[in-house]
């Protein structure tokens, strides 16, 4: 038996290792807690509705992977991973990197908008102060009759 064949046997052993019910239960409960938490935050007006689809999709994905064993194993084989948990970690990392990049872009836009707003406030306040000072002059120093 060659080394490659031995490795492939070992990988098959990993993939065919009996799965505990606790793992699936954890995934299902985690997904439901995540979905519930998102809805709770929306109800408290802490999280805006437009930010919820991505997180509800994550909760749905975790729930699906927890309920349907063949889906996670199929993905693991397709990605060349050795164990379903590696696939879950890999997908989680990809998602976190993508969402961090997305937030960095949103933050850059918000920084620019905040800067423009602050400049606008400064210039408007200056214009207002000038106007108030101009209007105050005749009252303080009325023209002689």
């Amino acid at each position, binding site marked *: 038996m060659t080394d490659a064949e031995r490795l492939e046997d070992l990988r098959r052993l990993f993939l065919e290792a009996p799965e505990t019910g606790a793992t699936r239960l954890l995934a299902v409960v985690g997904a439901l807690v995540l979905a519930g938490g998102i809805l709770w935050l929306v109800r408290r007006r802490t999280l805006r509705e437009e930010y919820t689809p991505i997180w509800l999709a994550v909760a749905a994905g975790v729930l699906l992977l927890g309920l349907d064993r063949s889906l996670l194993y199929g993905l693991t084989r397709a990605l060349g991973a050795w164990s379903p948990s590696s696939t879950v970690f890999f997908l989680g990392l990809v998602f976190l990197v993508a969402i961090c990049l997305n937030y960095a872009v949103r933050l850059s836009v918000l*920084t*620019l908008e905040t*800067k*423009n707003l*602050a*400049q606008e*406030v*400064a*210039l408007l*306040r*200056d214009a207002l102060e000038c106007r108030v000072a101009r209007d105050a002059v005749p009252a303080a120093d009325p023209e002689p009759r």
Partner: protein
Amino acid sequence: MSERPVLLLCAYQEATRIGDVLDAVAQAAPGYERLVVDDGSSDATADVARRHGAHVVRHPFNLGYGAALQTGYKYARAVGAPWLVQMDADGQHDPSGIASLAEPIERGELDLVVGSRFLFAGPGDAYAMGPVRTLGRRVFSGVSSAFGLSLTDPTSGFQALGPHALALYVGDFFPCDFPDVDVLLVAHRHGLRVGERPVHMWQSRRPSTLHSGWAPIYYVYKMSLSTWAASRTVSGGREGSR
């Protein structure tokens, strides 16, 4: 609408020095409207500046040097100033250079004039830079030359801007922190006529936060990245900046 040019000073926590600088500017350039953009100082910078005859625009909070400059550009455009001269509020720039910076803009020869301390050959102390800053200056001079913009002092903040430069610099590309060779390259790529004139500068009287700790490394990184982005700017005529 104002016929007077604007003399812009961006100040942050400069209460102890801004008064002297404003007095010196009033003597050297009496025809200018002296504008101080107070970048959210918690000291008496704004009050001192007003007492010394400056018009003061105050940011509600600290936005950064570049954003303060841009507020000044927005103000100058709003009041219809024919041109603007900007200088540091810490007294590093000699106000006697204001006239020579503004002259090419008054004559319509240039759109943006950079005051170069290294072209100055008159009386006064020669400006000395440390080896790291000298290396940085040479690198960025070389980079700007590679894009067809020859500058001996690309990090100088002593500049004069005509209406085309003001129109371009109020755009969203203008950085909040430290606009240097990157924005000059954007101006050049937009077809603005950029040149240099000799000015005298004194050594800064206090250590700059930009030259301590990790700041110089971040400065070089950030400036390289934004200079690369500026070099990718689609070039256009001056009409595009109006």
